[in-house]
């Protein structure tokens, strides 16, 4: 049993180190948006979110907390950068969950890869 357990841990460590041998696409962490640390790429298509009120995400239009792209503040402002992952997960996931719970056409919460492959969508 020790050997089996050690083999499982070794296999897991190899997958973490070198990636999944069966998954088609692998996300690559990098310094996207001039982030101070390597982060995962993110997919977000405005064209898929047209029914959503802009200020639901672009809070700066109503609370005057900055301008420009989301990432201008969220990766460069040291007061919010530590919360980057949590804030974006909460924002995206909560919205999708709420819409799904209400039976609205919002798309369900989804597996990680559905959001963490970079894209050039507008």
């Amino acid at each position, binding site marked *: 049993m*020790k050997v089996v357990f050690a083999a499982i841990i070794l296999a897991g460590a190899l997958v*973490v180190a070198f990636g999944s041998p069966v998954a088609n696409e692998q996300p690559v962490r990098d310094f996207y948006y001039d982030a101070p*640390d390597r982060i995962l790429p993110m997919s977000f298509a405005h064209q898929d979110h047209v029914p959503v009120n802009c200020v639901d995400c672009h809070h700066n239009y109503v609370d005057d907390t900055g301008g420009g792209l989301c990432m201008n503040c969220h990766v460069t402002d040291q007061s919010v950068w530590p919360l980057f992952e949590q804030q974006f997960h909460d924002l995206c996931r909560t919205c999708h969950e709420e819409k*799904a719970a209400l039976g609205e056409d919002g798309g369900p919460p*989804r597996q*990680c890869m*559905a959001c963490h492959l970079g894209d050039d969508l507008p």
Partner: protein
Amino acid sequence: MKALIATFLAVFLITFLAAPAMGGGWYWDAGNALGFAAFAGLLYLTITSSRRLDVRAHQVLGYGVLFVTTAHIFWFMLGDAAVIEFMKFGAPDYMWHGIVSFLLLGVLITVALVPDRFRVHSDYPAFKYWHRLLAIFTIGTATYHIVASHFYLGTWYQGALFALLAIAVAFGRPWWIRLGQLRLAHIGAYLAVSAAFAAAFTAIRNLP
């Protein structure tokens, strides 16, 4: 068998108390269902442990729980490449708790086997004490992994109920030992029940 089904029902029903039809797609839901089945197996192993325990059946069922836990982990690691990124330094604490829980489960099983048990523990009471303590930590870290992730337990009362269930199993030994020695389910039955609950969980959340 009744206790096995009841344990699975308790674990899975809590996830359906709010937004029962909400899912993240069949792949994600099936992988998480395996995790819930592994957790239910862990609770069942604890509930059925008493003085007249069938040690061999307990041991074999432990292998079953380790197998389902391993399936839960590799399902995501192999199929959703982004999950790997959440198993590295900087990952959310609930992911680390999941990893620690899996390692504790492995240690719980391997150290309980002879001859390693004799190497680690001087006598049987010492082994029982540490085995139980390790099981409580395994349940605790697994519970945190599940509850803090908020997947399928999005409301405060679902999280509280799930935590209460884990606490009742981990610390309620004086109470549930009064149930007498429950006959342990066969590993085949545990795997079949796991597959059935995982299939139902996935279907409910994905079928139109």
